[in-house]
């Protein structure tokens, strides 16, 4: 058991447990802040998958941007939001939630079966990548390669996504304006 493996189990344990807590918590603010922990441990998992740039982006955009947006939405939507949450009292294993739990557990069983049946470690293209030394090793620095690829090979998706982001932000600003005028 190497240190990397120990770290992997530790981070994935934190990610799954905090996600479960976010799902079961009755306090909305607490569930938002626990989601914060999930996002951070996922960033750690990305580092272990040797994608450090994606991990940094995750911290900057998700933790810095999306979470603050969610907190804003929570604070702008008044205390009735909290009343709705207080009404649904009862334990985690509420009878009303039973269908949702059954659905999630069955999905989990099916997907885990699919993962083990697919035997992803022995996929032909993965074996090819390992034999052709096309695999990222821990000593590689991938960030400059990502930058070059982003501006050459993936230029069209990059431009498309930038236009989409512009449209989405203009749309969000339009949707959240005060009513009455125009």
């Amino acid at each position, binding site marked *: 058991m190497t240190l990397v*493996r120990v770290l992997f189990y530790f981070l*994935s344990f934190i990610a*799954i447990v905090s*996600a*479960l807590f*976010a*799902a079961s918590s009755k306090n*909305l603010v607490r*569930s*938002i802040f626990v989601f914060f922990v*999930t996002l951070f441990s*996922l960033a750690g998992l*990305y580092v272990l*998958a*040797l*994608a450090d740039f*994606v991990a940094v*982006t*995750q911290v900057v955009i*998700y933790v810095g941007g*999306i979470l603050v*947006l*969610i907190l*804003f*939405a*929570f604070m702008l*939507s008044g205390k*009735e*939001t909290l009343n709705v*949450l207080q009404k*649904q009292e009862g334990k985690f294993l509420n009878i*009303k939630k039973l269908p949702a*739990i059954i*659905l*999630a557990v069955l*999905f*989990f069983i099916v*997907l*885990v079966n699919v993962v083990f049946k697919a035997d*992803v*470690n022995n996929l032909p*293209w*993965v074996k090819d*990548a*390992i034999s052709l030394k*096309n*695999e*990222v090793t821990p000593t590689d620095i*991938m960030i400059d*390669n*990502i930058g070059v*690829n*982003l501006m050459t090979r993936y230029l069209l998706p990059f431009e498309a*996504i930038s236009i*989409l*982001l512009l449209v*989405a932000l203009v749309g*969000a600003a339009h*949707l*959240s304006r005060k009513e009455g005028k125009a």
Partner: protein
Amino acid sequence: MITLTDFLVVSVALFCIGLYMVVSKRNAIQILIGIELILNAAILNLVAFGKYDKVNNSGQIFALFAIVLAAATTAVALAIILNVYRRYKTIDPNEINKLKD
């Protein structure tokens, strides 16, 4: 070394927790958190497979695109939630059952 299967199992677990949140929660913000969990499970898969593509980096680059898309989605969804709150004074999806007029 960590194998691909380990990453996939973690992402399956996150996906199922997100699915549970989307189906069972009675608050639009918590449903949004569930959607973000599902997106993160997908990004974890992209990153895990992207390890075996050193030349083109397709996995990591599309993971970046997915993160940016998630940011755009959240901005629009939160604007919609604020509008819904203004109209109905609640963000419980069960009670939102009328159109504009």
